[in-house]
């Protein structure tokens, strides 16, 4: 019995947090309410209309040259080759190009913004006790620009790439720049914040030593922060590159040439067979680049 009492005493003494319980309760109620609301707002699952739609969808999924005929691998392969060479592969190349340009632009912008956003770097006297009292105006200027940079990064992170691309396409037309900018800006927000946090979490010894030797902010950033943080920065970069590939596919649905453009075009012509083949191309492209970026990440980690 005494073990039981001890266990009960231990249980009573466990750390409890009212905040955590309230959050858990709120999360569970939100989930239940949302599921019920969606269920109530939808017709019954697989209603007659949906069954009819589904039947048509799967009938159309059969490659068009095979309609009403027995399956013939040769015909199917010729059809797939034609779709791939006329649309699939050029669109996959365009998707890849948009993603690469956007990810590199995002990394460059992120690096630029990370400097004022890093709290350890962007102060009147980084890493060293101030020799004299810095003026109030100087401290305010650093504080204000730093906060502004962090707020700007948060704003960029919050912008949905699709909404941004919608605006850019409406303004300048469906050109690749619209997709590149729409992907680069939100990702610059993500990378800028991660870069700034990496810079803040570096051990202070080396920058302090350089600072004591008279180095300025930029010298420290280039000579210490960048090389020390580079592996971490590259890891983040590759994660975002994966996101950019998925994003570049989808932004095509707004009329910019990429895989998404071909999805919309196939859908508009009610060519379900081509739509599914092109979605499969997008999936394979994503999986290949995931594998490539995983390999690059592990190479960087080992280096």
């Amino acid at each position, binding site marked *: 019995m005494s073990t039981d009492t001890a266990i009960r005493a231990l249980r009573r003494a466990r750390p409890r*947090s009212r905040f*955590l319980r309230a*959050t858990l309760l709120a999360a569970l109620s*939100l*989930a239940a*309410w*949302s*599921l019920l*609301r*969606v269920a109530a*707002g*939808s017709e019954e699952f697989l209603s007659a209309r*949906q069954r009819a*739609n589904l039947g048509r*969808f799967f009938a159309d999924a059969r490659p068009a040259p095979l309609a009403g005929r027995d399956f013939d691998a040769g015909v199917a392969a010729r059809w797939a080759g034609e779709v791939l060479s006329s649309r699939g592969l050029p669109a996959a190349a*365009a998707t890849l*190009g*948009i*993603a*690469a*340009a956007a990810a*590199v*632009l995002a*990394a460059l912008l992120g690096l630029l913004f990370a400097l004022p956003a890093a709290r350890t770097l962007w102060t009147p006297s980084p890493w060293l006790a101030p020799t004299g009292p810095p003026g109030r105006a100087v401290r305010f200027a650093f504080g204000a620009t730093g906060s502004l940079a962090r707020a700007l990064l948060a704003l960029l*992170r*919050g*912008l*949905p790439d*699709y*909404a941004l691309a*919608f605006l*850019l396409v*409406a*303004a*300048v*037309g469906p*050109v*690749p*720049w*619209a997709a*590149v900018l729409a992907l680069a800006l939100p990702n610059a927000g993500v990378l800028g914040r991660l870069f700034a946090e990496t810079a803040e979490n*570096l*051990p202070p010894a*080396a920058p302090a030593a350089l600072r004591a030797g008279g180095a300025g902010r930029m010298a420290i950033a280039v000579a210490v922060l960048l090389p*020390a943080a*580079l*592996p971490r920065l*590259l890891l983040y970069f590759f994660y975002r590159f994966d996101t950019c590939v998925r994003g570049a*596919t989808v932004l095509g*649905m707004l009329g910019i040439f990429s895989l998404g453009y071909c999805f919309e075009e196939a*859908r508009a012509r009610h060519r379900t067979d081509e*739509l*599914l083949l092109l*979605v499969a191309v*997008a*999936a394979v492209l994503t999986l290949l680049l995931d594998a490539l970026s995983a390999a*690059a990440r592990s*190479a*960087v980690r080992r*280096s």
Partner: protein
Amino acid sequence: MGRDGQLRRPLPGVRTVVCLALLAGGLAAAAGLGLFSGGGGRPGGLGAIGDFLAHAVHPSLVSEAPAPFGGGSLLPDLLAGVRETVVFAAAGLALAMLLGLPLGLLGSSALSADGGSRAGRTVRTGLRLLARGFASAVRSVHELVWAVLFLAALGRSDAAAVAALALPYAGNIAKVFAELIDEAPRAAGLALRAAGAPAAPAFAIGVLPRLFPDLVSFLFYEFECLLRSSAVLGFFGFPTLGYLLAGSFENLYHGEVWTYLFALLALLLLVEGTGAAVRRRLGP
């Protein structure tokens, strides 16, 4: 910086090569897309972008439509849009967790760690590969592409839209949960097993608590991403913030656009803040 927190000498070699290759790749891609040579589209459109950016400092809380329709408060629309965005995202996350967490457990090494018969091991390994393959497959298709496919297959349906949101996120959750399990310290779980505990309690008591804080942070992050995706779903006609955004964009009511964007941003910051507060209280 190495994982041990020591500064290392910056090595030439892999990192330099990777960095240069990335820059070259980015430049080549930009040149290939014609970004440097008149790829800028209609230059007249820059005025619209300027007008859009100028409205960032004065979002509008009243409708900007011309006289007979405009002038009314935007608040009812805004609140409904925010509510529906949250509903779609929360329902999507709930479904994604229901599917993704068991899938992650199946895909981790937790179930195939110890002995049993050879046939049993083969079955477990097969299940693990199947779970991982399924998670990768659903992850490799973007949620909006799933939405397009579901729209084409089923017609418009809120439940189908939520399922489209849930599928790739279930894949994400499965992948990360499996990785967290595989990377968690095993000692406590193994000790419990050695002392005779069955596999399930040994896992729940010996392994799960160590990865729980990281899992919760990750789920909050996924909820942020889902909120953004759920908002964008509105561009396809669902009643979330994107629906309002698209309408205001098309009419060039840029003050309204910023109101909706700031509402989404506030929602994201709220989730991020709650996630950080929860993470602090859950410990390291």
